[in-house]
């Protein structure tokens, strides 16, 4: 009983009665095969299993450019790839206002995403092309980006917006702008 479980809790997990557990522990009877297998799994799990990561945790680990903002424009999570692009440490910007650091066309894009109803679940997704001005302590730089913006639910079931993007060159920017006809396009939900 290394896990300090009550007999009743273990019984619930294994789908047997608490009396059965007590009999196994006293050596009066042997658990069936199915229970032995499950016990072996539980013992192993105690060492190899960590809590399930949430999708927000996974965003922070992402080597690509990805970040999450809420309806107030706060950074809720930023990927490792985006931190590399921005050239800052996580603690410098997470939990702060995105538009304090990100300007250029992207600032207007964030407003449009909000106005089009991203946080009211009115959008399936939005796409944007344009400049991203990165304004951090180490200096300012501007890159051209292609972004997709899409909704996900936080654990508190409020809508967050995930921004996934790539840095593109001028030729790709021009080509994609022609394809889409507009710098900012949305796909509504029904």
């Amino acid at each position: 009983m290394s896990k300090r479980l009550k007999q009743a809790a273990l019984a619930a997990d294994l789908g047997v009665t608490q009396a059965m557990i007590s009999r196994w522990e006293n050596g009066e009877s042997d658990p069936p095969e199915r229970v032995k297998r499950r016990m072996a799994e539980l013992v192993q799990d105690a060492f190899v299993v960590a809590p399930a990561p949430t999708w927000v945790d996974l965003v922070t680990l992402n080597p690509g450019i990805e970040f999450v903002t809420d309806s107030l424009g706060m950074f809720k999570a930023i990927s490792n790839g985006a931190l590399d692009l921005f050239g800052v440490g996580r603690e410098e910007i997470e939990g702060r206002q995105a538009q304090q650091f990100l300007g250029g066309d992207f600032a207007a894009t964030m407003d449009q995403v909000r106005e089009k109803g991203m946080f009211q679940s009115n959008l399936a997704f939005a796409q944007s092309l344009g400049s991203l001005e990165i304004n951090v302590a180490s200096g300012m730089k501007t890159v051209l980006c292609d972004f997709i913006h899409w909704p996900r639910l936080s654990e508190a079931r409020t809508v967050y917006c995930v921004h996934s993007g790539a840095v593109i060159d001028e030729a790709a920017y021009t080509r994609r702008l022609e394809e889409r006809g507009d710098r900012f396009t949305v796909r509504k939900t029904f």
Partner: protein
Amino acid sequence: MMDTRFNNSEIYWPAVVRHYRVSAGLNQTELANRLAVTQTMVSRWEAGGAAPSRRVQDLLFDLFWADSATISRDVWMQRIAHNPCMVFVVDAQGVVQTASRGFARLAGCSPDEIAGRSIDALFEGDAMSLFERLSEAGFFEGRIAGAESAELYIGRDQAAGSRFFAHGLHRPVFMPGPQVLWLASGSEVTQQNYEDVRERLGGPSVLRKAI
């Protein structure tokens, strides 16, 4: 160790039920209420004493989806094709269900040319062995919560001529069927970066078991 007790389905329900319940922060009674069954039932599924009915299987996968998404799975799948980052979705047979524009750009073709083709027809080496590692670990049975990896992609056929290093994150998506699909997202990286990631992981990939 393959579990062949539930012949009607490849999904390993004890892991799926428990993983969903724990990630949603529910106890067995709360999950039972959501699914309109008894707590004893939930406990038996988690212990492997019984498999959920087909109604509950679908409901469980729908709950998994509804907990993080505001859009339908169809819309989500279509949206991936527009993603400028590296994203792709592969089924248990190794067939690419959808690929992002970002991934297609790396592979040197269009998303339509990748979708519907099997991963080993498109890439040599690393990509296929990653699929095999995931598959053997029971990824498509719902036994894996996530994985991280570093790969060298060498294209063939549609992707011929492409060659890139990538750092990827992998997780299961629970789709109707019920079936588990492999969602890969990541980024192209330098060879140095790829080597650093492999060193940190202590190999080509690290898999995290579902609870």
